[in-house]
């Protein structure tokens, strides 16, 4: 499978373009690092690739077709702030169930204790919550993962643990992954190639 962003440009109303004419593509089984300075629109580009935002110009194609508007999106975004991607009023078990049946081996591998499932998000730390938002999208329906700075706020042990599970899953299921990060060492460690979002792309 192939996920492509073609000639992507984005601007908010009444502002300059955040970026213009970005071309980016990821194939199944490939891990692409996306590196950029802050304020260059990494998060916006991630959201566009996962269908959360519509680009001002250009389009995102999955195998030549537009992303589906309904049903499970094969391109899933994992966000930097886990506390924003989880409803604070929902128990953790229900959070996981939203994406489908719970894979107990997987949640164990990613470091989720079973008694956390009965807790509410406020009773868990950021690192613990991020394991849930990662585990939620690691299922057979996901074909591409966009990971937007998912380990920036985590300690290095949690970072290593989460990434090791993601990489194993991605390799096993032949999933395409875009890892947005500013950590050079991390990008070098996990990525097949690195895409730099730079000033030249801003028109």
């Amino acid at each position, binding site marked *: 499978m192939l996920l492509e962003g073609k000639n992507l440009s984005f601007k908010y109303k009444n502002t300059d373009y955040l970026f213009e004419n970005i071309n980016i593509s990821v194939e199944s089984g490939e891990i692409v690092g996306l590196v950029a300075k802050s304020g260059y629109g990494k998060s916006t580009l991630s959201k566009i690739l996962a269908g959360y935002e519509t680009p001002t110009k250009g389009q995102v194609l999955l195998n030549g077709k537009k992303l589906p508007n309904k049903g499970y999106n094969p391109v899933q975004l994992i966000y930097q702030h886990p506390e924003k991607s989880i409803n604070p009023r929902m128990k953790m078990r229900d959070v996981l169930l939203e994406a489908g049946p719970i894979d107990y081996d997987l949640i164990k591998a990613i470091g989720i204790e079973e008694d956390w499932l009965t807790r509410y998000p406020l009773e868990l*730390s950021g690192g613990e919550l991020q394991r849930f938002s990662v585990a939620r999208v690691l299922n057979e329906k996901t074909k591409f993962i966009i990971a937007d700075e998912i380990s920036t706020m985590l300690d290095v042990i949690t970072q290593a643990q989460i990434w090791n599970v993601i990489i194993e899953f991605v390799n096993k299921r032949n999933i395409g992954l875009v890892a947005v990060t500013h950590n050079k060492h991390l990008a070098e460690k996990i990525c097949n190639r690195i895409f730099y979002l730079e000033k030249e792309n801003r028109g």
Partner: protein
Amino acid sequence: MSKLLEVIDMSISFKMYEKGFRQSYTQVINNLCIKVSRGEILAIVGSSGSGKSLLAHGILGLLPNNATMTGKILYEGKGLTEKRIEELRGKKIALVPQSVTYLDPLMRIAKQVRGNVKNEERIRKQKESFRRYDLCENSEKLFPYQLSGGMARRALICTAEQEDVDLIIADEPTPGLDIELAMKTLRYFRELADKGKGVLLITHDIDLALNVADNIAVFYAGTTVEITPVSDFLKGEEGLRHPYTKALFNAMPQNGFKAVKGYQPYYKDLPKGCLYSPRCTIAKEECSKSKIPMRQLRGGMVRCIYAT
């Protein structure tokens, strides 16, 4: 180097409601000890939820009402009482807070940075620090909500620079800044330290801490498990003392990327003895019996019986 700040055996506990109506006291920071000298940057690294920010708020006397703090805080050798911190806060001890919500949403940032006084000297100083942090003239008139995350953080750092402070407590000053700017910020802290000020840098980013700090205090589950010179950290496993610090080192992407099992204990059910013992590979029975004190070891400090 003269000692500027010393925290001895600090514990902070909160009065909280559990499910329903039971009220309980939970200790979030346990027997913490650190010291900062003039000319030193002490980086406090630890994962989120390990109580790092609370330490800063504890020192500055900014804890919420339902918190109680025990232990001693010495500033320039004298006890830091509630009255004394009120005098020093903002004048001699400055905080660079973690979140942008610490800015007044209804005040233009230039005014906010220089404080509510108008004199040439202050305006000059404020313009100078704005230039240093790439905040353009136009941004002086903006309100906090109009700033990007990175700009707001730079504005926060500017505020801390305005007074002639001796101790800077920076609580996660870099997230939201890209590497270059983050390094620039930290280098500025370095300059301040070289001029004889003390800096307490609270961060979760070891890479950055290693770049500028003199000493690193490693935080785990609300206490310090090791205080080590940066040079020892760079040596890796041989240089380091505590098993947790070694695990941190080994988990970094550039060294192995290996994760130890388990998770930081929840503050409601902390282990009785060594807080790291459930995850530790060299733990023996003794480790879970009673609290482990901090001890001197090879020019650093460690909270482990078996560390060599």
